[in-house]
């Protein structure tokens, strides 16, 4: 089938795909560096992504030599020595500078007990509503509800993207010399808070242009919620005691052992109660710091301070894992000219290594990588004499699209998604990784692959969901392929047969290919000579 001619067409210098924090910072940065910028999001810039619904902590370290040196040392260690010192310093500095901008733009940070502004945490809805205004004011054209389906390319590299407007059903095309993929990680529609927009679309689009993935084995990440709900904020559970089905106490509060949730939930139901929130003062503080966490309980008629509630773990894939699109340049470029990646779509190994820890590292990475990629993309695009409209571009998508279907039979989207979830969600497969179990699971996942080469319906929903299904199958296959190749335990990746860290594997694992997946190892750069300076954009006015 010939690909359809798009009904909406725009030409720009930089196209940002994705409207979470990384996409917002990328679009602001690109526009601030003089590029005509379009941001296209699957959902809505302001509500999309894992940050928007709830509160988010930030890696926020004052420019104090000692504090920052300690933060870098902690990170190198916890990241399994796959991160790079200069990148961690740069991340801290960039996030620090940009959070001052957020304050100038009007975000009301609270005061701590010493009367100082506390800037290491933001409420997602307000942060992202503010970022939307900032992006608009910078002159960016925002296309909400415009999921991208495939990139455009020619012999010079990437040249834009095509997609569908989910509200009108019309196809769109944006031509641009630079494209920033800020589409997020991949959590396979697990319904972890705000995670369902992120289905690994950008990773598939990048791979179709030959870009490698890095660190896909670092994807063994779950978060705990009430069993009936979606709000993943583990911090509150620091106040909880835990019980088994019979009501026996299995943990009385305070720091938990590693694997605590997984070990016990793997055995059977686990219940929690916030027994350490035992004074009205403490309860008020907990509620006012993580108010969304309490919304499901209030609505379900459960008082979590005095009543037990069942918990479960929701998979967070590469949203809180660290694997993704391999970056090669200081400004988040990839191996394809004009193609950049930011946020959770990109591999975060340069700053986080093999473990991201909580959301704070990723939240600051979104700020920093967005800002860097925006600068890189603007400079790349503005170096071209002519507009991208003059290029002889062709669509690069190969899987899960109407024009690439190889059989008349429709892709059974729901069945494929369910089959992938059955391999990715169970703790017995993905959390307690062991060679035979992962290998058998990967075989089953490979069998799903031919199915996403089938036909696709004409509605916007059908087109988007078919493409998402293809992206999820390939992300799952990458994750388990990488897990089997890394025969050791490092950071968040574990393998039962190889329970120790293997010094010989202190390298990054790169995957290429979609149908056939190949791999190679890449040394972690160890030259600690110079640190690329942070990007400074002079802005004074509030928005």
């Amino acid at each position, binding site marked *: 089938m010939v690909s359809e001619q798009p009904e909406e067409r725009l030409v720009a210098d930089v196209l940002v795909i994705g409207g979470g924090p990384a996409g917002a910072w990328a679009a602001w940065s690109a526009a601030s560096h003089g590029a005509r910028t379009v941001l296209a999001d699957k*959902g*809505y810039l302001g*509500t*999309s992504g894992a940050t*928007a*619904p709830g*509160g988010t*902590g930030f890696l926020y370290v004052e420019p104090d030599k000692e504090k920052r040196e300690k933060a870098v040392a*902690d990170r190198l260690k*916890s*990241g*399994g020595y796959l991160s790079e010192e200069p990148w961690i310093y740069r991340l801290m500095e960039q996030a620090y500078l940009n959070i001052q901008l957020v304050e100038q733009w009007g*975000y*009301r940070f*609270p005061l*701590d*007990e010493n009367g100082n502004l*506390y800037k*290491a945490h933001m*409420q997602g809805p*307000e942060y992202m509503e503010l970022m939307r205004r900032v992006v608009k004011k910078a002159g960016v054209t925002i296309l*909400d*509800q415009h999921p991208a389906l495939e990139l455009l390319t020619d012999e010079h590299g990437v040249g834009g993207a095509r997609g569908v407007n*989910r*509200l009108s059903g019309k196809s769109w095309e944006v031509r641009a010399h630079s494209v920033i993929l800020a589409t997020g990680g991949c959590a396979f529609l697990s*319904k972890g*808070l*705000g995670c*369902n*927009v992120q289905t690994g679309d950008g990773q598939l689009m990048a791979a179709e242009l030959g870009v490698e993935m890095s660190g896909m084995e670092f994807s063994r990440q779950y978060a705990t919620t*009430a069993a*009936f*709900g*979606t709000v993943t904020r583990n911090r509150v559970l*620091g*106040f909880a005691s835990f019980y088994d089905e019979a009501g026996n106490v299995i943990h009385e509060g305070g*720091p938990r052992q*590693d*694997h605590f949730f997984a*070990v016990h939930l*793997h055995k059977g139901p686990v219940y929690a109660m916030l027994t350490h929130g035992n004074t009205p003062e*403490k309860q*008020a*503080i907990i*509620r*006012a710091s993580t*108010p*969304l966490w309490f*919304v*499901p309980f209030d*609505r379900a008629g459960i008082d979590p301070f005095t009543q037990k509630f069942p918990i479960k773990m929701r998979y967070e894939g590469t949203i809180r894992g660290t694997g993704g699109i391999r970056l090669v340049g200081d400004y988040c470029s990839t191996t394809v000219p004009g193609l950049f990646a930011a946020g959770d779509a990109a591999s975060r190994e340069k700053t986080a290594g093999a473990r991201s820890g909580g959301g704070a590292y990723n939240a600051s990475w979104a700020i920093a990588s967005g800002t860097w990629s925006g600068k890189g993309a603007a400079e790349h695009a503005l170096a071209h004499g002519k507009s991208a409209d003059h290029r002889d571009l062709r669509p690069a998508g190969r899987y899960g699209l109407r024009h690439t279907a190889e059989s008349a039979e429709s892709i059974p989207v729901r069945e494929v998604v369910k089959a992938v979830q059955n391999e990715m969600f169970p703790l017995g497969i993905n*959390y*307690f990784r062991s060679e035979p179990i992962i290998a058998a699971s990967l075989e089953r996942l490979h069998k799903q692959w031919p199915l996403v080469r089938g036909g696709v319906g004409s509605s916007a*929903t059908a087109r988007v969901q078919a493409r998402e299904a293809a992206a999820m199958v390939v992300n799952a296959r990458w994750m388990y392929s990488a897990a089997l190749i890394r025969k050791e*335990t490092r950071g968040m990746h*574990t393998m*039962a047969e190889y*329970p*120790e*860290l293997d010094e010989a594997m202190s390298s990054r694992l790169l995957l290429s290919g979609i149908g056939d997946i190949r791999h190679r190892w890449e040394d972690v750069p160890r030259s600690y000579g110079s640190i690329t300076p942070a990007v400074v954009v002079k802005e004074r006015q509030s928005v």
Partner: protein
Amino acid sequence: MIELVSTDRCIGCNLCVKVCPTNVFDKTEAAPVIARQEDCQTCFICEAYCPVDALYVSPYSDEQVEVDEAALAEQGVLGSWRATLGWGPGRTKLAAIDQTPFINRILPARPVRAAGVSDVRSPATG
């Protein structure tokens, strides 16, 4: 999951159609309809944006439940998340009264985990 678009309260601004990150609503001649409930990710953000408190997201993410609009209104549930966020005229923004600086002091610190050490013992290996 989203369970209610109150046709009594809705003013037809279609903001929920525009802001839903997973495209759950469809625009109609009158109030928007919940067209793809199974795609709702239970993130509650549509409620935050609705200017007339016409939406209700149930806490149950994986099962459909019956809701009683009159009871929800009477209990003050409709619009409660928007009110907590401090969105809407005359309200104090949640950010300004965020208690996170204090929760961090009453919570035990999370230890830094050494590479590949703390994750060694899984049930599979004993």
